[in-house]
């Protein structure tokens, strides 16, 4: 993928008029998807996709065109035709006062060869380990590629092959243990151990479920649940544009009016993430950007557009200025002691369908899911009938945050609507003094 992209870039840059600057961004994948129901194959296939984004800049006028590449001889002529179309668009658009372009070329190359076996082998190992169970979900295997090239000289490439297993083993109805595993190297015994551990916990889910009344309860949110929560609140909490325009859920903190718990320290940790350090248009992300330090705002995520608009430096954030590799630092509660520390309350393994009730105040709602249990005196008693929580960020990560566990877990994003994603979340578990349940 790297060679094809760079060759195409060289071809397109050749003969470019001096008045034109051309930037290219490439997203590519060759992914095997195997979907399971009842520990059998429901759908299986391969997707090979290469998308080239062209941005033509002439002075302060610019436009973009995205094109799917075939990987054959037609790519050059189609890309040239795209460039001609861009010229006709740029000729009629006004200047953009918020255009910011990288000025100092910063090249990079990070291409790792795949060590993964064929996806059929991974799938067969999984199905063998899960035989007789009700395994549901998807296995994704294969490389992703990101590339950037600028007619001013910059070249960046990134390629990495990985596998990601997002599955559940169901006991019955909506009760299941998750089996989620991801990595760059496949280890059959590790996968088998994960499956075996999940299967060993299924009997708990067969106990009669407990139905709670709405109210406030002590709760422990496992790392996967915290990852879901962070995925929502990091959407705008650290956005320069959202802060400036006043629609940020942590606005009171950014205004110095109230703060989260001192236990909360959050970074945008690009160096520890799963994706490249360069953004779509050639800006570099810092290795680590501290967004919250002991509950107090520090840096913001600044897109190139916001940088130009507000006269600040860009952090290479994407257009939405949301996190891409967020890290919530661990605390001091030993994970093995979490249930004992909880005492009596909810053990929440996963959260589902989170959304803002009122983003201005950071009020969030969502549902419990999968292996969420009722706990008494530190012991799991019964699986919980799903409940809705409806609570504010200044409680959940503020006044009601009793402790964070001492180890973070990596949760790669599973959302691949626009293709394979490199978004990730590293979070500990969180013990809350109280969580408001609504229905």
């Amino acid at each position, binding site marked *: 993928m790297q060679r094809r992209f760079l060759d195409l870039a060289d071809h397109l840059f050749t003969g470019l008029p001096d008045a034109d600057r051309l930037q290219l961004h490439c997203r590519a994948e060759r*992914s095997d*998807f195997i979907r399971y*129901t*009842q520990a*059998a*194959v*429901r*759908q*299986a*296939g*391969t*997707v090979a*996709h*290469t998308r080239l984004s062209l941005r033509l800049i002439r002075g302060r006028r*610019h436009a*973009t*065109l*995205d*094109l*799917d590449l*075939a*990987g054959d001889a037609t790519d050059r002529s*189609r890309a040239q035709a795209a460039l001609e179309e861009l010229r006709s*668009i740029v000729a009629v*658009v006004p200047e*953009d006062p*918020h255009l910011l372009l990288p000025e100092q070329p910063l090249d990079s190359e990070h291409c790792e060869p795949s060590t993964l076996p064929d996806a*059929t082998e991974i799938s*067969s190992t999984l199905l063998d380990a899960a035989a007789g169970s*009700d395994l*549901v979900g*998807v296995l*994704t295997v294969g490389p992703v590629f990101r590339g950037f090239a600028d007619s001013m000289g910059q070249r960046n490439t990134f390629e990495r092959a990985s596998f990601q297993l*997002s599955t559940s083993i169901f006991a019955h109805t*909506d009760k299941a243990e998750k089996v989620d595993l991801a990595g760059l190297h496949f280890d059959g015994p590790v996968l088998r151990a994960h499956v075996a551990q999940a299967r060993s916990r299924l009997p708990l889910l067969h106990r009669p479920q407990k139905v709670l009344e709405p109210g406030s309860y002590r709760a422990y949110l496992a790392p996967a649940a915290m990852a879901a929560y962070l995925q929502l609140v990091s959407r705008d909490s650290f956005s320069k544009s959202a802060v400036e*325009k*006043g*629609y940020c859920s942590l606005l009171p903190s950014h205004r110095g009016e109230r703060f989260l718990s001192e236990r909360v320290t959050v970074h945008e940790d690009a160096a520890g993430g799963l994706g490249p350090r360069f953004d779509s248009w050639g800006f570099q992300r810092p290795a680590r950007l501290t967004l919250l330090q002991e509950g107090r705002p520090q840096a913001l995520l600044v897109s190139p557009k916001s940088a130009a608009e507000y006269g600040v430096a860009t952090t290479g954030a994407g257009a939405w200025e949301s996190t891409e590799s967020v890290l919530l630092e661990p605390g001091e509660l030993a994970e093995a002691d979490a249930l004992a520390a909880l005492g009596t309350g909810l053990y929440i393994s996963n959260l*589902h*369908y989170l*959304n*803002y*009730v*009122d*983003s*201005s*105040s950071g*009020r969030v*709602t*969502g*549902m419990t899911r999968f292996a969420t249990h009722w706990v008494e005196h530190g012991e799991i008693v019964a699986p919980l009938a*799903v409940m*809705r929580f409806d609570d*504010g960020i200044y409680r959940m990560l503020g006044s009601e945050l009793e402790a964070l566990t001492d180890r973070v877990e990596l949760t790669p994003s*599973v*959302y*691949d609507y626009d*293709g394979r994603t490199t978004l990730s979340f590293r979070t500990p578990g969180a013990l809350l003094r109280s969580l408001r349940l*609504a*229905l």
Partner: protein
Amino acid sequence: MNTQILQESMPPCDRWTVREVHLREEEISLDRGVLRAPSTTLDRGAMVTIERGGGEGYAATSDLTPSGLRAAADRAATWAEHAAAHPLAGLTLPASPATTSSYATAAEVPWEGESLAGKIERLQQATIPLRDADLALWVATLQNRDTTTELWTSEGGHHHQHIRQILPAVMLFANADSGGTVRRSLGRSRGAQGGLEVLEAIGFDTVAVRLLDEVKQLACAPSCPEGTLDLLLAPDQMAIQIHESIGHPLELDRMLGDERNFAGTTFVTPEMVGTFQYGSELLNVTFDPTVPGEIASYASDDLGTPAERHRLIDKGLLVRVLGGTLSQARAGLPGVACTRASTWRRPPIDRMANLNVEPGTSTLEDLIAQVEDGVYLQTNLSWSIDDSRDKFQFSAEFGRRIRHGALGEVVRNPGYRGRSKAFWRGLKGVGDAASRELHGTPYCGKGEPNQIVSVGHASPPCLFTDIDVFGGA
């Protein structure tokens, strides 16, 4: 391409299909009067499916040469063998009908008939009222999607569809007296099939005046009160209610368990078909791919099954579910032609298409007049529902109190929660045909790997009784 050329590209197999998709998407957007860089997308490729020995596999490629399709077919065959070696019980792949069909969106004023400069000018004219307004943010967008799909099957089927969609958006944020911001917008469901005439039909060119007035009202409005109240939902809030609380629960592949790891399951079981009183006798819901201009109208689904109108809920009784031919065969239930994929890069699965509440006999004024103490909600703001599609919580941008049969003051952040199992039985009023609006969103997400498709929800305003209502923080 033609069937013969494709046949020559295929490896030995029991059946094959090739679905080629070309999508041209254009977007123009004004951000507080500044034109964002116009974007264009040329998306094209094909998905090859191979059936061999009882298993099915797929492979998607942008290489549309005979050799590229052959390579994809070979990979699909590998997956067919893998599936055959690990077969799902009850999965009998139905034959695709050897039929042909053709469909094309009627566009009175084609998108490409207006120049880029003309479309930019139209956006600028439509947003003049916003230029000097005291707003934290405003954005106006015109998006066009032009999709051509060709499906060939080994049985000799051939289906051609040319679908044009217009997706307009206007969104305003104002600073609220109570802190933070309030939002007023055209909504996320104003998409439709057609050309630029859609903009006139929905009043796009003049809507900014109303939205500006309403966001100012919201900025100083009190929060919606809490209580058990009557709830009148406008068509643009009914769209999300139908979508989350009828559409997704009725998807047959959820009942069969396929979505449990991601999008979820459903409280609806096959045994409920024909027996479950989903709603009051006023509730009539149709799956209707034949509505001119509705966003998800088509002639056949992505397996080539002819698309027909069917009633799913008849006088409140559940009579049919949303499942294509494969799910129908697995479940032994009748369904509809709804097996669709978002792009050439995703395999088809059971989806909603146009899912509509049929009109009743009440005018909007009639419905308001029935309310002693309630709230009228317009334009969806937030949505959340459990993984069985039962416990939901939604909110809207704009609310108005209703007391003693008359509209009252504006309220901010009106929300409500309920359970799908019972909610629709509280339906006590349905607007008439004149009050019905076509709504459509391109953002219905589901599937592993994930995919987003367009769905339509036409509805009149509807009145519900004794609903748990609340406000913001």
